[in-house]
Structure formats: C-alpha cells, structure tokens
C-alpha cells in the first residue's frame, strides 16, 4: 500500500467507493439535474468497474509514461511575435464592455 503524493489517504480499491457525482460536477463546473446525477453516477460506476481490471496489473516495475515519444527541452527564443488584433479578440466575446471581457460578479467573499 502506498500513499498518495497529495494526501495521506491510502489508495482505495478502485470501484468500491461510490462516486460523489455532485462533488465532481462542482469541481468540473457542470450543473447536473438530479436525474443526471443518478444516471451518470450509475454509468460512471459501471465504467469504474471495468477500469477496476487495472488493479490486477503489476505496475511496480514501470514508470508512468508522461510522453510517448521522448523529447526534452523544447523551448523558444524570447522573441516577440505579432498578436491578435483587439477587434478579433473581442468580437466573439459573449459579453464585452469597451476593451474588456465582461463577466457576472465573482463572489469571493460574502
């Protein structure tokens, strides 16, 4: 049993826990109806059961593949390149005000 980099929780057996769909939907900023929460919950649980097969694999000897084709140090020279013209940038904004994008209130404090 190994511990996660991020928390001290031990790794759960994959699909034994029920997914908190409401919490995940909140993280993903997608509003779901109660019906969808139920339906997706079942479908995701189903998928996770299939995915559970991965628990059987012995992955102890391998590193995670970050990339398929090994490549390192892809960098660009610090040179300024032309940017987009502002009208192009703003003309498809769902809501704009002058030269800005406008969004509804960001409630960060009560």
């Amino acid at each position, binding site marked *: 049993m190994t511990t996660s980099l991020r928390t001290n929780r031990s790794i759960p057996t994959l699909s034994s826990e029920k997914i908190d769909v409401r919490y995940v939907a909140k993280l993903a900023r997608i509003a779901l109806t109660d019906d969808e929460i139920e339906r997706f919950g079942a479908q995701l649980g189903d998928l996770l059961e299939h995915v559970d097969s*991965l628990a059987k694999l012995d992955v102890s000897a391998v590193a995670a593949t970050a990339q*398929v084709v090994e*490549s390192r140090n892809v960098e660009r020279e610090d040179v300024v390149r032309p940017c987009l013209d502002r009208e192009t940038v703003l003309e498809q904004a769902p809501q704009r005000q002058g030269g800005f994008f406008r969004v*509804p*209130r960001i409630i960060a404090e009560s």
Partner: protein
Amino acid sequence: MSNPLTERSAAAIARDVNARTLSAADVADAVLTHIDDVDPQVGSYLTVLHDRAREVAAQVDARVAAGERLPLAGVPLAVKDNMCLTGTRTTAGSKILERWVAPYTSTAVERLLAAGCVPVGKSNMDEFAMGSSCENSALGVTRNPYDVTRVPGGSSGGSASAVAAYEAAIGMGSDTGGSIREPAAFCNLVGFKPTYGRVSRYGLIAFASSLDQIGPLTRTVEDAALAYDAMAGHDDMDSTSIDRPLEATAGHLRTDLRGVKIGLVKEFATGKLDAEIHALYEQAYRDLEALGAELVEVELPTADYGVATYYLIAPAECSSNLARFDGVRYGLRVDGADVHDMYERTRAAGFGPEVKRRILIGTYALSSGYYDAYYVRAQKARTLIAQDFERAWKACDFIACPAASSPAFQFNAKSDPYSMYLMDYYTIPMSLAGLPALSVPCGWVKPPGGDRPMPMGLQLCAPLFKERELLGAAHAYEQKTKHALTHRPLIADTAAPSGSV
C-alpha cells in the same frame, strides 16, 4: 450519376491540374455541385465552403499557371470540424462552439492548403472527438454512404462519409483511440494515423493531448501517402511535435511483401468474432502471405487493458482541456447569478452527455486521493503496453489485426456507453503506444439484419516513425486485393436528377 471528376483520386487530380489539363476550378465546381446533391442525405458537412472553395481553387490555378508544382493541386479537402481554419465556423461538433469562427488556421490544414488542396467543407464529428459513430454530434447527423441506416463511424465520421460519397478526395481526421481508423473501416476507406508527434496539433481542438493525432482518410493508399507527406513535419508552435527528418512516402510504396514478417496478435485472434468476419480476416492474412509475407504469432499481453487504460487517461486529459469552454471569452454563454453559476449553466447547456461523462470521469480520476490509483496507474499500464509492442517488434515488422470487430452498426445500436467504448478495442493499444497505424479495406460482409454488404478494414501497425514502410505494406495489400472497388457507395448514385452532371 455523379460527375466522374468527383470520383478521381487525389493523385490523379493533382497530376492533371499540375499538367493544366484540368482546372482546380472545375474540380471545385463538380464537387460542390455533388455536395449540394447528396449531402442532404449523407450529412457529411456542418459547413460547406462554397465561396472559399472557389476562391482557393482560383488561387491554385493561378499558382500552377505561374509555374508552381503543387503536390495536391486542386484536391478537394474535407476538414474535420475540430481543426481551425481562419474565417470558418469551427464547432468540434458541439453546441458550445456552434457559432464560433476561428481567427487562425491549424498548421496541418495550412500545409495542405500550401500543397494545393481546396477546402470544400468542415465535416461533422462526434462532439469533441468523443465517440465511435458520429452519433454524439450535437449539430448534425451523418450517415454511412454505403447504407444510410448505419453510422459512418467516429469520431471522424463526417470526413469519412465525405470521402466515401465523393464529396472530397481527402478527408482530414483526428485519431485519439481509433477515430480515423474505425470510420475508415466503416466507410471503405484508407484511414491513417501517423506516429504521435509527426503531424502538428496546433489548431486541433484538443481532446486528449498525449493521444490526439491528425491523419488523412482517402480512397487509396497512394492518396493517404500524398496527404501525409504534405501535412507532416516539425512545427515550432507544438512542443510535442517531433523534430526528426521526414521521409517521403508517396512514390516509395512497395508492391509486395517479400522478406516482411507480419505479426498476428494472439489477444486479437478473430475466432471469437462472427464467423463471416473471422473468415474475412483469415483470408486477409492469407493474402498477406501470398504477397510474400511470413506470418508470425506475437503477444500483446497488456492489450486487454487498453480500453480501461484509455478510458482513464483520455478523460483525465480532456477534463482539463475542456475547462476553457466557460462562456468567458468565446462560445456559448448561459447567464448566471455569478460567474461560477454561469460556468455551470453554460457547460451544462453546451456539452452533450458523452462529453459530460468523460469530463466527470476524468475529473474524478485526477482528484485528490484518486490520482495515484487511477491516473498514474493508467499511465503505468500504458508503459507496459508500449513495452509489449517493443517486444513484438523483435519478431515482426508489422502487426495485422482487425480495425473494428464489426462493420458499421445501425443508429442507436450501442446505447450503453461501455459497449461503444469497446469499438475501440483494436485501435486503442496503438494509440497508447503512439505507433503509426492504418486501416485499409479488406472485404465485405452482410451484417446481421442488413441487406447491403458493408465494408471492413484490416488494421496494420508499424514501429515508431516507420510511416513509409507501413504505407508500403498497405499499398501492396491494396493493389493485390482491391477490395475497395467491389461495391460503390449507395449514396453517390442517388443524386437528385437536377444539378448533377
């Protein structure tokens, strides 16, 4: 009967336009007229580029007249709607981008245009490339030109149906887990996914960054080679683009398989498939032998974990890639009481159920406490799969197997998400390992309950960077068997009486 111009290969069109015995303008006219006739039934295109096509065709003719020799002069091109083309609506098959017009062009498209292609339309696709039937498009329905009650495959379904129905000679597709190869198999086409990193992803609306690759769908292997040669190569706008010299593939395609070892994967044995399908593949393998190849058995023991691995990695990456669709800077916005409410309503309205499912599963797989168990574990399984292939390459030069386990199915046949995911069973392992792979037509079967013969595809896969060898093997097989020519697409022949030549 459609204009025979529309049925010509890209190679033939380019040759004649360069020789100036044919004008790009005439080709464009013929194809656009044909599109107007048949697309109402096939539904390949979300946007037809009537004006743009004619404009570009005129430019191509001018360039050729000025002495330029363009490898794809005048070739009508279907561009999958997840690839940006300046000034065109680029929707990724989604409501969230239904009205978005791209202000820049993806590198791969730009290169094909530089090579002389004429873009005739933006083709339909499963929303954000998530799907294997094109049924997940939120903006249109695409039908298989060989049987309109059946799906064209996905996610590059529109590009596949366009090329199959002669509405283009080259279709640009993108393949993450099989989205070029499977629709190619379903529509009697060659569908080619190059080595990961060979074709720039700049301007391709991302689904799963470490898996997405752009590639061509064509009616012949030679056309696929020409298209690949034009679109491939390093791009400094894409950090994952490979900086390695390119070998031309077109003009270097072999016609036999002498000295070649072809691996048949134990885990992909076709005995468990439908009897007619099994017989089809057995015949295909014999045909490879008849061309001089030696068949050897290889193992990919981790291949069975491919679908599970893929359906953790791809959703994880896409859950992050699709976060940008938030109603702030472009695309759909549904207002809310505050910005977070706006995000939730916008994304609820803008994304279809499959997209939502994958975002949810991906978010979950990356979330605190689950990251190691899911995402990291899947990436390790991926390493094992890649290692399996490396071992296989010691015994063979190519791997041959089915592209899909069945021909094109009927609409709504796969209502359970996981059964749809299984359509990618044979194509996913190659994607996970980043290997070049393609599907080439290998025969016809009568699907149960169907009365029309439907095409099937033989998948060939090669080691990293062996595009030339792979296309060569496919070419040899194609030239010997010519399965693609056995039946014509139904749809091409049911053009409306007026307006067709």
